[in-house]
């Protein structure tokens, strides 16, 4: 052929072979792009990733910059934790579902709480009307938590709890239940989400204004660093940011911006970066654009390692490791042709595994309609097991690494996320960027554009705007009994009758007194939950001191 370089050869190929071919058979689109607007070329070659960059950009798994994975041999040693998010109705019902999932081979628990619990209201609060037990289990006091984990040995399972504003209080309840089982807190393994910043921008279950909320986060970071070495005191979450409409680049950027903010706050409170950073964990979404998603996880890992090393001068390599949980994308599911969702979830779960996740929740096919049935949850879990045991992708580390296309996308996502981080820094901080409404507007613009592209037909969603079929509505949908609130209210009344109310009042008063000081609140929460003070009473004491956050409506 006579060409000296790949570049020459590629130019020739473009100008002859490709050009002639496309002249006869035009391409489907004028331009191609990923779902997050990363332009995609016809072909990627060594020009997009050169071997000389290997050591700097990729390195080796288990070593800085961790692009290829945080462990040296990844899934050859241990598979990811299969962790299905579950919980609904009463503590008894959720306890049964947990036992069912453990029987089915699930390896960790993930607790969904109902919305009143998430915003710190007891089931008898007027705003709890209609919501008790709906999107998760209702927890009003330690009495509910004892039932929730009845017969589940807390020294054997790891438990993730999706709880944010009142995270420290629910953690206190978990500690109290474990103590009753004879399990010391230092042995407990699990996670509280405890990521309040994304609540202001995407998820909405905030209670207090940002400043006291950040203090509660720092209190738990410091408490866990001291007393719970195996616990993840925070799961910094891009998932909800993505589900709110952000694209993959924004998901990485805004999550890491939140993480930077927590690190700064902990440092300001006097903690050393390597004291708490190894306990930080992350949570991302997995959507349909397979290569972009794999690239996203790798880019997030590399970028975080750099931030920790260069910006925060971390010394401990564990501080630089981005450990993350993944959930498949709820917003990508369609209410039409439900079985198609099984396929979407499989692609997304594969992306998470190829991206090196530490744990995974796979959504169920019927979640666009309501809570999943037991059968749907089983298919979702089986999807993970098929990837783990049949697909072969677990046999080597980062199997897509070195794909010219993947490496190009990884670079692109890292670069664009880095630009966002610089913009946020120029605004002062992530809290300021949120208060300015900048983050919310960016997410909303992406969400709006995405939905428009579906409605215009420019983006095809199978079964929704193309390949439609007439279908009957599905018969089996899990429903929560609306009378459940009455049951919960009765239980609160019983608890309040049985407990020592004098002791409750003393500790609630104590919390009010300590809240304005800088003292760590977690030990007081533990004391309070043990008196069977309710979640609503404890957050009530804090509301008096901290006030409540008023949402700024941006649209």
């Amino acid at each position, binding site marked *: 052929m006579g060409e000296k370089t790949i570049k020459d050869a590629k130019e020739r190929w473009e100008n002859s072979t490709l050009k002639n071919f496309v002249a006869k058979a035009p391409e489907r689109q004028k331009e191609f792009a990923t779902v997050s607007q990363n332009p995609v070329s016809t072909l990627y070659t060594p020009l997009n990733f050169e071997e000389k960059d290997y050591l700097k950009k990729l390195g080796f798994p288990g070593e800085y910059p961790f692009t290829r994975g945080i462990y040296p041999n990844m899934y050859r040693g241990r598979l990811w934790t299969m962790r299905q998010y579950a919980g609904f109705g009463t503590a008894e019902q959720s306890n049964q579902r947990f036992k069912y999932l453990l029987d089915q081979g699930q390896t960790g628990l993930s607790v969904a709480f109902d919305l009143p619990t998430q915003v710190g209201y007891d089931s008898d609060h007027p705003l709890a009307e*209609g919501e008790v037990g709906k999107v998760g289990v209702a927890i009003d006091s330690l009495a509910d938590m004892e039932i929730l984990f009845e017969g589940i040995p807390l020294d054997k399972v790891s438990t993730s709890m999706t709880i944010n504003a009142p995270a420290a209080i629910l953690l206190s309840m978990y500690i109290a239940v474990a103590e009753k089982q004879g399990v010391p807190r230092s042995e407990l393994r699990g996670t509280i989400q405890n990521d309040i910043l994304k609540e202001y921008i995407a998820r*909405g279950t905030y209670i207090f204004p940002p400043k006291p909320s950040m203090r509660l986060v720092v209190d738990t970071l410091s408490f866990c660093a001291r007393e719970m070495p195996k616990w993840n005191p925070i799961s910094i979450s891009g998932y909800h940011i993505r589900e709110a409409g952000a694209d993959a680049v924004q998901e990485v950027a805004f999550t890491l911006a939140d993480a930077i903010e927590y690190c700064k706050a902990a440092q300001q409170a006097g903690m050393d970066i390597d004291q708490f950073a190894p306990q930080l964990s992350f949570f991302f979404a997995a959507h349909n654009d397979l290569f972009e998603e794999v690239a996203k996880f790798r880019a997030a890992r590399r970028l975080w390692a750099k931030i920790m090393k260069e910006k925060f001068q971390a010394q401990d390599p564990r501080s630089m490791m981005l450990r993350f949980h993944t959930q498949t994308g709820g917003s990508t599911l369609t209410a039409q042709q439900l079985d198609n969702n099984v396929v979407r979830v499989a692609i997304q779960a594969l992306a998470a595994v190829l991206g090196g996740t530490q744990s995974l929740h796979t959504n169920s096919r019927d979640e666009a*309609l309501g809570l999943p049935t037991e059968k749907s949850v089983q298919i979702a879990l089986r999807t993970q097991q098929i990837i783990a045991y049949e697909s072969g992708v677990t046999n080597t580390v980062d199997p897509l690494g070195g794909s010219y296309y993947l490496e190009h996308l990884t670079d692109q996502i890292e670069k664009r996320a880095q630009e966002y981080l610089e913009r946020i820094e120029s605004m002062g901080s992530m809290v300021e960027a949120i208060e300015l409404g900048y983050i919310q507007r960016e997410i909303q613009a992406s969400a709006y554009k995405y939905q428009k592209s579906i409605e215009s037909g420019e983006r095809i969603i199978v079964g929704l705007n193309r390949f439609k079929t007439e279908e009957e509505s599905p018969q089996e*949908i899990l429903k929560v009994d609306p009378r459940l609130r009455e049951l919960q209210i009765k239980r609160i009344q019983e608890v309040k009758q049985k407990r020592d109310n004098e002791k409750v009042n003393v500790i609630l008063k104590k919390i009010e007194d300590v809240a304005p000081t800088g003292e760590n609140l977690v030990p007081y929460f533990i004391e309070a939950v043990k008196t069977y003070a309710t979640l609503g009473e404890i957050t009530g004491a804090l509301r008096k001191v901290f006030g409540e956050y008023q949402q700024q*409506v941006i*649209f």
Partner: protein
Amino acid sequence: MEKGKVRILIAKVGLDGHDRGAKYIAQALRDKGYEVIYTGIRQTPEDVVKAAIQEDVQFVGLSLLSGAHNQLFPKVAQLLKEKGAEDIVVFGGGVIPADDIPFLKSQGIKEIFPPGTTIDEVVDFIEKTLKDAAH
């Protein structure tokens, strides 16, 4: 009636913070030329009715993804009636199983838009409702 004169309140009742859909509908209806007010999240039925009357809207669009629609949607319709504002048309959307739609309609919710609804379907509904009311 001109679109610009038609006022619509988009409201999030209940405690769920999933407002991607509500915001999309609000923005898309505004882009179609309607006057749209969005309440933000965590509104009680009382808050919504108060805002609807104060803002003098013809339509209230409720969004809810937590499953509390059977309790909270009818309450909005009922409170509007109690306030003598039953001429305000209530519609809803979110994660709402098909089985629940007949009940919600019987409680005064004029239309339910399940996941997958396009903005044109909502606009058609609004225009048809306005046309029917004019006759």
